[in-house]
Structures are given as structure tokens and as C-alpha cells.
């Protein structure tokens, strides 16, 4: 069977993507920042009709066309959109690969008759693209190069074996050459592919290298060229539809169990574990409810995950019933298979399960651990980080005694650089029994902390005769006494 290749080119992929969501009547451009200048990345038809072109600076374009609307380009979103289009294009044939940043290449060998012939196939593509608001140029030929040339420069079909005739009249640029090579060929008077094909090959190869002839041969079918579709990114989502709506939370849990089993199978096959799971429950009245489960550690054991959903599912309002459930692992981490040891250590899984369960109630970020930090400032000598994302560790070496509780400084009435013999704090009258100090701590000048505006502090440990052991400080640069902590 002769090979038939379709090249789909979306000349205005970026603007079409944006305008699909938010249509604009007048000229519209997407801009990209290159070396301190906003340049036009992509234009719509009206913009091109105004005489604007790609690569133009936005300031110039505004001068030509004052009512130009613009938005920043998002190449990452464009790439994702192209991947979606690639998935859509598998309706025509199973073998779809990307072609540059704005095109697709399809190997439709043997599948054109399903669409009623080649011209009917192209017509269907055009019709659907137009309905989706996309500009589309299509070429169909026996080779990938010829299909590309037709899509970009002529559009249409080259019959099997007729590539040479179909391409003869097309410009040199249709061979996917570098812009520099094209200019040099044109200077030599070789303007069309027909001219090039008729020229002696040896001098061309000597002058332009093998690349030019390779492109020519690929277009003519004398050199093979493969289409290599990218493997789809693993998709960790499963869904379940019911013939009749369900409403009992027990039924929902059974449904969740089935979904979890399927999802965990997928995760296991790729040695991955879910970190965030979201369960979407679609109701009969088209409303949907979401149950999000954030796990303290990556997991893929359905029996352990299922009980964690109980709380979230219990809160769901089923309304008139739920007829579709979808479970997605929205954040996935690697979870390699572990060696089974003979000695059983303390079970870290049980602890992370408990943290997850607590986290579903109070929020996973509210279960915290202390980590040591490198600072003399008492409030900054430690970090608080969520236990789910922190590994306990670091050494706590404390040179000087530190209070057990710290609070925002509370002023007391006292003067002088020595701790007062008697003072009142929190409506208690206290007298100093023993004072140890001072320990001078100066503010970190590289951080502007409003609490330390009063300058350096002289800390004293004051043991009162009443029993309380307090941490007092004096600010010599800005005289005043404060209580900041209490010892055990």
C-alpha cells in the first residue's frame, strides 16, 4: 500500500487559541518579549490585513494600527493546546506526531476510505477546524516533506507518485530549509523546487552540504522519513457512570473503592504514588461536588486510601443523586517499590496515615514540625514547616538557656540597665530573687524587622521570689524593659 501522509498546519494557532475563549472583532496580536522589546508573536486575520507582520515590535504595530489589542503569548499553553489537537486528530488515524510548534503530521495510509476518500477527509478536517475557530492548512502527499510543502505553500492533494509534479512550482522555502540557505539559493536564481530538482546535484552538495539534498530527496520520496509520535503523558484519572443515580454515602464509598482499585493499578504499573487525589461527584442536576484528599506521603494502596475519603464523602450533598464519579490523582510522585526487610522497623506508613487523617480535618499544613534555623534572634532561631513535607533532622544546639514559651514583648515599668528589684507583670507583683545576664543580642541589620526597631537588647533571666522564671530584656538604645518569655 502506498504511503499517504497528511500535514496539518495551524498558521494562527496561538491567536486562535486565545480568541476561542475571548473573541475580538478588531486586530489582535500576541506579543513576546525579546531582548527588552515586545515583538509580535502571532496575529489574527484582521491584524494581517492592517499590514502588520510577525516579529514587528509592538510599538511600531501600535503606530500603524492604533486600535490593536494585544496580550502576552503563552508558548507553554500553545504547546499543550497542540497536544490536545494531536489527541483529537487520532480520530482520523492512529499515527499522529507533532510537526514543529504549530503543526501535526498524520500517517493516514489505509484509513482515507473510512472518510469517503482523500478529498472528503480533507474537507472534514477543514469543516471541523472551522467550527472550532481554528485556521487550518492541509496538505496530503506520499511523503512527509511533500505534505509539509503543500500544507504551507499550496494546500491540496498530490496523487501517489506525482509529488515531483505537484511540488515543481512551489518556492524553495517549501523544502523546510534554513532561511539563510533559501536566500543563497534565490541569489543563484533557483526559485522553485522544479529549478532545484533540475540542477546538477554534485555542485549543490559541495556548496550547501548534504542537508539540502536530503530535504529534496525526502520530499520526493527517495529518502525515508519517519513519523514519531510522542508517547502520551501518563493519565491518572478514572471515572464511573451509573445507570441510576446513587445517594447513600455507603454506595459512594463502594464506587470510590472501585475507582481507587483501577487508579492504584495504574499507579503501581508506573511505580508512582498519589500525593493529592480529587474525587469529583457529578449530580443529576449537572452540579458537581469535589472531595479533595491531600496525603502526607505518596501512596498507592487502595485499602489505606479508602478510609481517608470517608470524612470528605460524608460532607457531600448528593442532591437528587450522583450519576458520575471521577477520581483523579492530580499530584503524583515517584514511589519505587521497596525491598521487604526481615526486620520490621517502626512503621512510618502508620504515622503518615495518621497525619493525613488529621490533615483532612485541620489542613495538612497545620500539622507541623520544628526545624532548626541559623539565627541568634530568638523568634527566628527555628522554622515551622508542614510535617508532610519536612524530614525531621538537624541538631538543636543551644548555647544559652532559652525560655520554653515565647510571646510578643510585654512592656513593664522599670528604668536603668539592671533588672528592677520589684515589678508588675500581668497584674502580678513580682520581686527579683536572682538575675542572670545580660546576654546582648543585636538585630540582624540585613533584615528589617519592625519588632527590632528599638535596637539591641540585653536579655536577663530573672528568677522571681514568687516562683516564675521570666526572660526580660532591656533596650539600652531606646530605654525600656520588656518580658518576652517564660522558662520552665
Amino acid at each position, binding site marked *: 500500500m502506498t504511503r499517504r501522509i497528511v500535514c496539518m498546519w495551524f498558521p494562527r494557532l496561538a491567536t486562535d487559541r486565545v480568541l476561542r475563549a475571548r473573541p475580538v472583532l478588531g486586530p489582535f496580536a500576541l506579543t513576546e518579549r525579546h531582548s527588552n522589546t515586545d515583538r509580535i508573536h502571532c496575529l489574527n486575520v484582521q491584524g494581517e490585513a492592517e499590514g502588520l507582520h510577525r516579529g514587528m515590535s509592538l510599538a511600531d504595530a501600535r503606530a500603524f494600527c492604533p486600535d490593536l489589542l494585544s496580550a502576552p503569548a503563552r508558548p507553554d499553553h500553545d504547546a499543550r493546546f497542540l497536544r490536545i489537537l494531536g489527541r483529537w486528530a487520532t480520530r482520523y488515524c492512529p499515527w499522529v506526531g507533532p510537526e514543529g510548534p504549530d503543526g501535526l503530521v498524520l500517517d493516514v495510509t489505509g484509513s482515507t476510505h473510512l472518510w469517503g476518500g482523500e478529498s472528503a477527509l480533507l474537507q472534514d478536517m477543514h469543516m471541523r477546524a472551522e467550527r472550532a475557530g481554528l485556521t487550518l492548512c492541509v496538505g496530503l502527499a506520499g511523503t512527509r516533506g511533500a505534505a509539509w510543502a503543500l500544507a504551507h505553500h499550496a494546500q491540496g492533494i498530490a496523487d501517489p507518485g506525482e509529488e515531483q509534479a505537484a511540488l515543481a512550482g512551489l518556492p524553495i522555502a517549501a523544502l523546510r530549509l534554513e532561511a539563510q540557505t533559501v536566500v543563497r539559493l534565490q541569489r543563484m536564481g533557483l526559485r522553485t523546487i522544479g529549478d532545484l530538482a533540475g540542477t546538477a546535484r554534485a555542485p549543490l552538495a559541495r556548496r550547501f552540504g548534504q542537508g539540502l539534498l536530503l530535504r529534496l530527496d525526502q520530499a520526493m520520496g527517495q529518502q525515508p522519513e519517519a513519523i514519531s509520535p510522542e508517547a502520551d503523558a501518563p493519565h491518572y484519572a478514572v471515572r464511573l457512570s451509573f445507570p441510576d443515580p446513587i445517594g447513600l454515602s455507603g454506595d459512594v464509598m463502594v464506587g470510590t473503592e472501585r475507582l481507587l482499585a483501577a487508579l492504584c493499578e495504574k499507579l503501581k504499573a508506573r511505580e508512582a504514588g498519589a500525593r493529592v487525589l480529587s474525587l469529583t461527584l457529578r449530580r443529576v442536576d449537572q452540579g458537581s461536588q469535589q472531595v479533595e484528599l491531600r496525603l502526607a506521603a505518596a501512596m498507592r494502596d487502595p485499602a489505606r486510601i479508602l478510609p481517608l475519603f470517608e470524612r470528605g464523602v460524608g460532607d457531600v450533598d448528593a442532591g437528587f443523586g450522583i450519576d458520575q464519579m471521577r477520581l483523579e490523582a492530580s499530584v503524583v510522585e515517584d514511589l519505587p517499590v521497596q525491598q521487604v526487610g526481615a526486620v520490621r522497623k*517502626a*512503621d512510618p506508613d*502508620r*504515622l503518615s496515615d*495518621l*497525619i493525613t*487523617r*488529621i490533615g483532612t*480535618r*485541620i489542613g495538612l499544613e*497545620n*500539622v*507541623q*514540625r*520544628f526545624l*532548626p534555623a541559623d539565627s541568634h534572634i*530568638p523568634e527566628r*532561631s*527555628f522554622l*515551622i514547616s508542614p*510535617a508532610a513535607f519536612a524530614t*525531621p*533532622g*538537624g541538631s*538543636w544546639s*543551644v548555647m544559652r*538557656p*532559652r*525560655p*520554653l*514559651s*515565647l*510571646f*510578643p514583648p510585654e512592656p513593664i515599668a522599670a528604668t536603668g540597665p539592671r533588672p528592677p528589684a520589684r515589678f508588675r507583670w500581668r497584674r502580678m507583683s513580682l520581686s527579683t*530573687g*536572682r538575675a542572670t545576664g545580660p546576654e546582648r543580642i543585636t538585630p540582624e541589620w540585613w533584615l528589617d524587622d519592625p519588632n527590632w526597631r528599638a535596637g539591641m537588647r540585653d536579655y536577663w533571666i530573672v*528568677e*522571681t*521570689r*514568687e*516562683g*516564675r*522564671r521570666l526572660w526580660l530584656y532591656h533596650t539600652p538604645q531606646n530605654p525600656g524593659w520588656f518580658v518576652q*518569655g*517564660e*522558662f*520552665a
Partner: protein
Amino acid sequence: MPADRQLPWPLRKARVHEVFGPGARAFAAVFSAAARGDVLWLRESWHGEMINPGGLCRFLDVSRLLMGQVPTQADGLAVMEEALRDGVIPAVVLELTRPLDPKQGRRLQLAAKTGETTGLCLIPEGMGSNAAETRWHVAPFFDPQADSTPMRWEITKNKQGTLGVWNVRWDDQTHRLHVVPPAGD
């Protein structure tokens, strides 16, 4: 009250205890140090006062400590019950601001019994629950002679034993609790 009785320490397992007074937090730190394994310390997130790990490391290895910031006391009780029942964390500390009703206190006891874990509630003075196994009043006191940090531990409620008062001192080096003879006053 005779002061020569044996200090009932460590606290009875699979029970929930209560402590109040100015030294309650130090008591909780000593309690956490006695636990073998992780410690979960729950407190309401609106507290301006915070626990300083620099002070806590006198008592225990801070990497064993898990802090839970709970929005309300009801959440704190629910989390404590969950953790006590699970049994993977041997010691759970909860700072309370309002009195417990008998049902809540009883539920905590049952959870501790199921999970074989020990709980400790830091309560405001006079807001004890009837379900508590023991209740302690802890206050630091001033020792004019030695440069040490003694505390006075008084047991004010004990379901399975007698009451008593002890003067204790925490040893930073050996991480041990020493009962000191009362000063001759």
C-alpha cells in the same frame, strides 16, 4: 499532707491526665520526654504565645515533636481522640481553653484505652474534667540557695491512688527527673 510518698511517675498509661498552673507547660515537656516515640502537641492557632523549640530541647529531642495548630477546641478534641485511638503516637498533649463536658472527657479516656496511648490536657485553673485520671498543679518556686530550676508538683486528683506534693528538678544533662527533699520551711 505527707510528702514522702513515691511520685507516681511516669503517668499511668492508656489514660488521659490533666495539669494546670504556671508550670503546666514544663510538666507537659517532661511528660513528652518520658514518652517513647513521637509526641503530638495540639494547640489552638490563635495563641500569640508560642512554644520555643530552643527551650524545649532541654527536655526532649525536638525532632520527635509534631505540632498541630487547630482552629477550635472541638477540632483539637477530635484530632486528639483520633491520635489517641490510632496508637502510633504514644503521647498526645492538648492545650484547652474551655472546660470539657463529661462526655468529651470520657471519649478521650476510651480512645486512650483503645490505642494504649497517654494523653495530657493543659487546662485553665478550676476547669478540670471528672473523667481525668489524675490532675496536677505545677508551679515553679524560687530556691535561694542553689542555681537550679525546681518545681512543685501537687497531685490534686487521683482516681487510683493518694494525693501528694513533691518538689522536683529536671536534670538537663541526664534528661531525668529528680525528686528533691523539701526545703526546711
